[in-house]
């Protein structure tokens, strides 16, 4: 019998899962968010709207910010995924400049949406190290923040953007 698998790379480590209905298999309807959180224990991406509207589950897939709740894991075969847990230097623990800026500029309140906002920011800066304020606002317009940390987030992101760090 043919065994179907799906292989994804998460934060530089490769994972292969069986696909099917047996216990432990990835079912065809399993979201990438669920795989990350429930199988890999990477709970930085948050489960909130589960319909791609709030951005709390944002991860970077092949260089683009995506809502992981809207990706089926079986459709991610061969994809390279970075989560918030993958931003910190694995050896030194040093924070990514965007993470550091979020602390320096007090860019969060409850923090539930913060990993998603940071990942959207990282994807934008990777693609465009010096975005304008307007471009940052547009890029983040799919990230919901109900505590209203937007003003501080913009200051944090622009401080990094102006340095051209990616």
């Amino acid at each position, binding site marked *: 019998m043919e065994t179907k698998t799906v292989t994804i790379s998460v934060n530089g480590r490769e994972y292969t899962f069986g696909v099917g209905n047996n216990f432990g298999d990835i079912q065809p309807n399993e979201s990438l968010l669920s795989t990350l959180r429930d199988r890999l224990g990477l709970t930085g991406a948050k489960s909130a709207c589960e319909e791609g509207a709030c951005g709390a589950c944002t991860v970077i897939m092949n260089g683009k910010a995506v809502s992981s709740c809207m990706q089926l894991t079986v459709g991610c075969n061969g994809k390279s995924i970075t989560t918030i847990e993958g931003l910190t230097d694995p050896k030194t623990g040093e924070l990514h400049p965007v993470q550091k800026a979020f602390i320096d500029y*007090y860019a969060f309140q*409850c923090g539930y949406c913060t990993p998603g906002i940071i990942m959207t920011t990282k994807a934008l800066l990777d693609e465009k190290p010096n975005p304008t304020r307007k471009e940052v606002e547009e890029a983040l317009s799919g990230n919901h923040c109900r505590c209203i940390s*937007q003003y501080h987030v913009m200051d944090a992101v622009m401080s990094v953007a102006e340095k051209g760090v990616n």
Partner: protein
Amino acid sequence: MSKKEYRYVGKNTPRKDARGIVTGSAEFIDDHKFNNMLHACSLKSPHAHARILSIDTSDAEKLPGVHAVITHKNIPEHCRDWKIGMPGFRGILDETVAFVGDGVALVAAETKEIAETACELIKVEYEVLPALLTMEEALDPSSVKIYPQLKPHNEIPKDIEFAGEQFMCDLYRGDVEKAFEESVYIVEDEAEYNSLPSPMAAEPPGVVVNCDENNHFEVWATSQGGYYLRMMCGFRMPNVDMDVYTLNTGGSFGNKQSLQSTVSYAMLLANVTHRPVKLFLTKAEQLLVHDLRLGNKIKVKVGLDKDGFVNAVKGQWLVDSGAWSDVHHVQLGVGLGEMQLALCKCKNWDMTSHVVVTNHDPTGCVRGFGGQELKAALLPTVNKLAEKANINPLDFYSKNFCSSGDEYVWRDRHLWTAFETEYELAMRTAAKKFNWDEKWKGWNVPTRVEGNKVYGVGLAVHGNADVGEDNSEAYVRLDGTGHAVLHCAITESGMGQRNNSAKMVAEVLNIPFENVKITPGNTAVNPWEFGLAGSRGTLTTATACVRAAEDARRQLLELMSDVLKFPAEELDTKDGMVFVKDNPEINCPWIAAMQPFGTDITGHGQWTAAYSHPNFCSLFVEVEVDLETGVVKLVDLTGGTDVGQIIDPKTLEMQFQGGFGSAGTDTAINEEHIIDDNTGRIVTHNMIDYKWRTFNDFPPFEQVILEGQPDISKFRAVGFGEIAGSPGPSAIMMAISNAIGKHFCQYPATPDTVLKALGKC
């Protein structure tokens, strides 16, 4: 009193959990792992009002992986007195369902998918009853009764004793009829703030509940306060033995305090299965069945005397609770209190309230808590008085808002006198920053006109004496290494109160901030803490923490007096050392006061409720109205307050900015729930149809924050966060009125409402 310089207070201190937040390692309830956990979901009523004629759960029960299916028929006998609403007028599951989404059956299963499948297998036959979706329908004596015991018709009793307190539900002071005779101007009007918005915290409401063999419940909750949740569960489920554990909470805005049906459902299933049961709402469920803001309509008559003071208010306040609510009686008291603060020179009041049950989603605690609701409807009417008298609203609210010596009846039915309450300077300084004098052109006169775009300005004020509400308790434990542990049941839901309380403890003990730890925010190891509500944390919780630190410091210096052979009053402490003030070279580490490997020092602090110092927020707004499309846009905003003493500048700034969201300022422009008249179903149950302000739509927001140093606590700080959005709705109504040249009061001001006001549709 002049401002003091402190080591930490008044300076920015990064949150202790900051690294966890930005790396994704900060733990929320949904991230926490529980062994052997079951997943729950509920079968929901498709009808707004119906009787369950029959229910067949046999197929659901047979589904492999299902552990419990509970309906109103098989609810365990000892859980039949578990109620919902306040006072509990209905069982958790009932033969009659009262709104679209009301629980019909509860399922616990090995996976969420199995639980959902099981729900689909349940067969229910309903007798559909007339749905009463508006307060008018519900109050009509010819309508059906939603709950048979409600008297008068579909009204919830409001005289409820709650934790030993009777709350103000109506307000009768002075002689309104005589006062109206002395009024120079009188306005009678009807208004409403009734669009049932949702605070829609980022993290959906949810719990994981375990119940051991002794029926002790361990509730892990997304609540913003463990003791508050336990207290509310105690009212609904008498004699239940439970502890509440919280981790980081992903926003609440008051709205995830008591988790009305969610926690009850999970406790019921945990009680039956004796396994941890996880019940988390989806975002759609959060918008469909979780607590909304109270609905409001008022009919009111207001009078103005010759000196420009409001001198009489008489009216009726109708409050829509939806299918149930749990703190409406407190919200009435706070709302009537906050109304008085805004018009505090007025000594004649006759306000009667009615809380009406309807067949839509339940309501509950939301920031603004009665006052935002009542004033969003009332102040536009009051503004008509100022308009008639042609008084600049800046002058009008400066003189009518509460100041030292003014009296008001607060929620506890007692008459309180405002103490060291002076906010005119904050308001006028903010007005100056906003350029109010230049922008204000008169009532119903636009600031400027640019083609089809008209611009208008507005302002409003808000204050809340609940900054001193309810009780708090804390312990501070010192160990010999110069570290302190703060035992306090504060949950971090975004306001930074855990950090700020730890800062104040570090300040009192004069030790490095990083040497203060704080216990997890649960009820199991911490003393009583009412929780963060009504901007109370800064004055109440933090004062309990400060007093505990002072008590620990006193004990330390007394013990050290024996060691150093100097009177305690001649000693001081810094960075874990105690020294003689006049001769710091004589010193000793804290450990000398304690038994090595033995005892610590524990200080104890408390705060008891007091309502004599209201806080304050003024908001100045400028709107752009497109006369062709009816679109209203907020283009400029300045807020003004005086917080006594800033504890953490950046945190405070963000609290101020937070007023936009969580059913605050934006309820004037875009936040509303729309209910289908035919089905009674909320149709705005997703984040596309429920409107919220996105990153690319924020106007400039300036702030004026003064530090008047009132003598109310050691650090003289007044809480602020809750009220940041409360003046927004009525300020925006004033601005739209001025922009379009005629009185306007409709929430939210969507394009169709504006075009209708303009006679264009």
